[in-house]
């Protein structure tokens, strides 16, 4: 096949800022952050008691997420405590995935390399988010339960059976990082490759259902990342009954 598009797992480097390489996925991640900040600033500036259209959408979103969190955590107060982290993760991944579907991502080229690339299609982005999420889960556990109970989950000095359970718990924390990052990376990168190949084979009309699929997958993966983080936080801060 001639002209088959170049696909690389590694995100291509665009330029360096003081010896730190900036890749095309980093660039789109920054754009996504700027879009989120602008949205937040606009909403904050034009906040009203009777909401306009944009504010209504976000109020609806916040209410839905809080209801879901309340059903997992039990109390509204606890849900409000962990709401910012989880919603930030959700919105960041959502905007990154959806911005990565714009037609400008791909054709615009700088030094022979695409200028923009979906951030979640870069393993660095997903591993970083996974580390942040798992670290946040353990940090919240320490803050809520105290450091003695937190270490007591992993190290059982007198009980031989529970010692191996504790060791498995430690390993499972690292497995969570791998599982979070590869789930998001696999879904988004595979979707990108699929869109490239389908667009190369039949450029007219046929990519449409695949684009719909990618919009859906982008939303679902952001939702699953945030929800799994929430479920792990709920499990880690739950007071064990004595």
């Amino acid at each position, binding site marked *: 096949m001639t002209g088959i598009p170049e696909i690389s*797992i590694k995100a291509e480097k665009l330029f360096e800022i003081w010896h730190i390489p900036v890749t095309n996925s980093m660039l789109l991640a920054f754009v996504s952050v700027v879009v989120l900040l602008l949205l937040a600033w606009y909403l904050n500036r034009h906040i009203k008691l009777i909401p306009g259209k944009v504010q209504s959408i976000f109020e609806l979103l916040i209410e839905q997420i809080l209801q879901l969190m309340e059903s997992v955590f039990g109390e509204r107060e606890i849900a409000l405590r962990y709401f910012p982290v989880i919603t930030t993760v959700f919105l960041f991944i959502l905007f990154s995935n959806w911005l990565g579907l714009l037609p400008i991502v791909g054709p615009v080229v700088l030094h022979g390399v695409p200028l923009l690339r979906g951030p979640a299609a870069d393993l660095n982005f997903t591993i970083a988010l996974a580390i942040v999420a798992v670290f946040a889960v353990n940090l919240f556990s320490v803050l809520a339960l105290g450091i003695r109970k937190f270490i007591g989950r992993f190290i059982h000095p007198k009980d031989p059976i529970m010692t191996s359970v504790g060791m498995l718990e430690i390993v499972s924390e690292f497995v969570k990082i791998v*599982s979070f990052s*590869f*789930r998001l990376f696999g*879904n988004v990168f595979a979707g990108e490759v699929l869109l490239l190949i389908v667009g190369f084979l039949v450029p007219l009309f046929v990519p449409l259902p695949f684009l719909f699929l990618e919009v859906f997958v982008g939303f679902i993966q952001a*939702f699953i990342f945030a929800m799994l983080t929430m479920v792990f936080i709920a499990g880690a801060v739950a007071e064990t009954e004595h």
Partner: protein
Amino acid sequence: MSNDQYSMDAESVKSLAIAAVMAIGVIAPAIAIGWIGSRSVEAIGRNPEAGSKVQTAMILCVAFAEAVAIYCLVISLILKFV
């Protein structure tokens, strides 16, 4: 009779490996997701009030089962592109 005519070259084996990893790797997750879906739909049918709780748990379980299939996909992609 040399042995060369009975061996495949590295490129062909690599292509076969890429296809085989995916083909075999998605059997179990597919069955698992089907099971999860059928049980949860049954549960919703038996108790429509608990519908949203069952749905949330179902989405969570499907995500875990699908992650295993995604691991296979990542292995295939690495074999193909690296």
